[in-house]
């Protein structure tokens, strides 16, 4: 049994090429974007990509947390894959943190206009919000959330590797389940309070500082969670294609496919809940968010977003056969990842650089982040055997049948 992952040279080269593309795009961005408008686009692109990819890799940690708390056994066979992906959290978290601090402390007011103290003073809404929306709170929340996410991701990974050195007795099994449940419980609470509530307010919703929506964080979460599932599927299929993970088969893929299907619909549900109430009430302070998106330049992206993130997965993943086929799952996973990347783009773009542009810069940076994720994940996969052999639920995963 091939249990120890060896980095395929081609994939490593691909990751370097992608990182190179990202860096090149960044350099071109530095020289190509001039003036206030250019600098806004430069920073908005970085903010969009780094927050999107951080939340996507964080979804892997959430996957471990949620399945563990549900006492799931089916995912144990490939648990090392989301574990390895979640190890990109500290890396991407550090990148995002640097970007956020540069935006906040060099006063990029076109990104977050609550940064302008003079403006806030004369703006009634923003001065009311200033107890929350200020540089201190922004920094504190960023430090705490990124720190806590990294801590839990590393902790869950470390525990899992440590358990490889234990034995197969019943007492050890109970101990493994118990401590994983406790730590995952802690992580889920932190995750719910950050991704499910406060953090997207600071990083993304405060771009449109006058506007607010209580659905926003859930909507961001749904977006990142379904993309996270897609990312797990992509790495899983890559490992399968290279002859690893012999115990994982289309039964496991089928269940991941159900997740992708269900949460694409969940995303649409949240998207619609946010949209319909604002559309119905039609109040000026609320429709400012949707005005450029539905009736402005971003209209095609708005509908493309629905088409690619709802209609496509809904019709494509409905059939059992597509969820059990490796190639078709790779295709839909890439569609979902690109689709939710577009979703984040239309969350950031209209509030910052206003005009719809051809997103060569944003996409190039995105490829760079993909390169970073591939590099970190394949490096992490080599660090431990691919099967947690002492986990008491491993057998349940091997005999798993949907």
């Amino acid at each position, binding site marked *: 049994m091939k249990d120890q992952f060896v980095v395929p040279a081609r994939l490593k080269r691909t990751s370097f090429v992608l990182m190179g593309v990202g860096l090149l795009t960044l350099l071109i961005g530095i020289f190509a974007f001039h003036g206030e408008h250019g600098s806004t686009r430069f920073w908005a692109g970085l903010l969009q990509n780094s927050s999107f990819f951080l939340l996507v890799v964080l979804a892997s940690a959430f996957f471990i947390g949620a399945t563990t708390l549900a006492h799931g056994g089916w995912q144990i066979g490939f648990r090392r894959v989301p574990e390895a992906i979640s190890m990109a959290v500290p890396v991407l978290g550090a990148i995002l943190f640097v970007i956020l601090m540069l935006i906040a402390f060099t006063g990029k007011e076109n990104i977050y206009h609550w940064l302008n103290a003079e403006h806030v003073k004369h703006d009634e809404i923003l001065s009311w919000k200033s107890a929350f929306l200020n540089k201190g709170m922004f920094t504190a929340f960023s430090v705490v959330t990124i720190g806590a996410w990294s801590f839990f991701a590393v902790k869950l990974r470390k525990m899992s590797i440590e358990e490889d050195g234990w034995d197969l007795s019943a007492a050890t099994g109970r101990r493994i389940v118990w401590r994983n449940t406790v730590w995952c419980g802690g992580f889920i609470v932190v995750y719910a309070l950050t991704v499910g509530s406060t953090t997207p307010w600071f990083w993304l919703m405060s771009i449109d500082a006058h506007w607010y929506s209580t659905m926003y964080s859930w909507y961001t979460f749904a977006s990142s969670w379904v993309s996270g599932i897609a990312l797990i599927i992509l790495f899983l299929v890559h490992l399968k294609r290279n002859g690893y993970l012999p115990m994982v088969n289309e039964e496991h893929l089928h269940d991941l496919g159900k997740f992708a299907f269900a949460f694409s619909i969940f995303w649409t549900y949240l998207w619609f809940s946010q*949209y*319909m109430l604002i559309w119905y009430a039609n109040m000026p302070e609320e429709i400012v968010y949707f005005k450029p998106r539905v009736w402005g330049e971003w209209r095609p992206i708005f509908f493309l977003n629905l088409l690619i993130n709802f209609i496509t997965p809904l019709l494509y993943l409905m059939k059992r056969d597509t969820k059990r086929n490796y190639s078709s799952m790779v295709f839909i996973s890439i569609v979902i990842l690109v689709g939710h990347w577009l979703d984040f783009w239309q969350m950031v773009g209209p509030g910052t650089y206003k005009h719809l542009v051809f997103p060569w810069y944003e996409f190039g940076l995105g490829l760079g982040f993909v390169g970073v994720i591939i590099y970190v994940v394949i490096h992490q996969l080599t660090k431990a055997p691919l099967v947690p052999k002492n986990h008491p639920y491993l057998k349940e995963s091997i005999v798993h049948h949907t």
Partner: protein
Amino acid sequence: MAVKNFVVASFSDEAVLFPAVKKVRTAGYKLHDVYTPFPVHGLDHAMGLRETSLHTAGFIYGITGTTTALSCMSWVFNSDWPMNIGGKPHFPLPAFIPITFELTVLFSAVGMVLTFCYLCQLAPFVKKHIFNPRQTDDKFVMAIEVTAKTNAEELKRFLAGVGGEDVNEQRVESGWWFGRFDREDRLFETKVEAVNA
């Protein structure tokens, strides 16, 4: 519906049942059905049943619900009785979505339940033969149809050989008929031997 001969065997363990099902199929006997007290994963696959089309039916019912809701509402608010509600257009799609969603779910759910009942031939007063009363309790019961080519005695020996217990032959109605369990069989009064005797 027809009265047919069946050879019936019961099994007390899934681990015995699965190889037995496989051997029965390889031997070429006509497997009527396997009755289990709980859903057994993979048994449908082992028995060689075809994939159900219930979900396709569900999709069609759902689409019907979607069309019904959208066409009904747009007919009402556009041609039958146009009303101005909050200055919204006469075809306010976002406002129609929740109801469309509800009708989609309602049609597919109710339709699938009825289709399921039809496929399993379940309805009030529809009665079927119960091969062994313990099939709803703790036994996996396998019924094999005795066709013109089947030698019943040989089949009985074969079933006992693959681990079947309590092998017997029954001449019963193979389909359903109208009747009432409480009036006819009074199965709850039938004495069943104690499990731990």
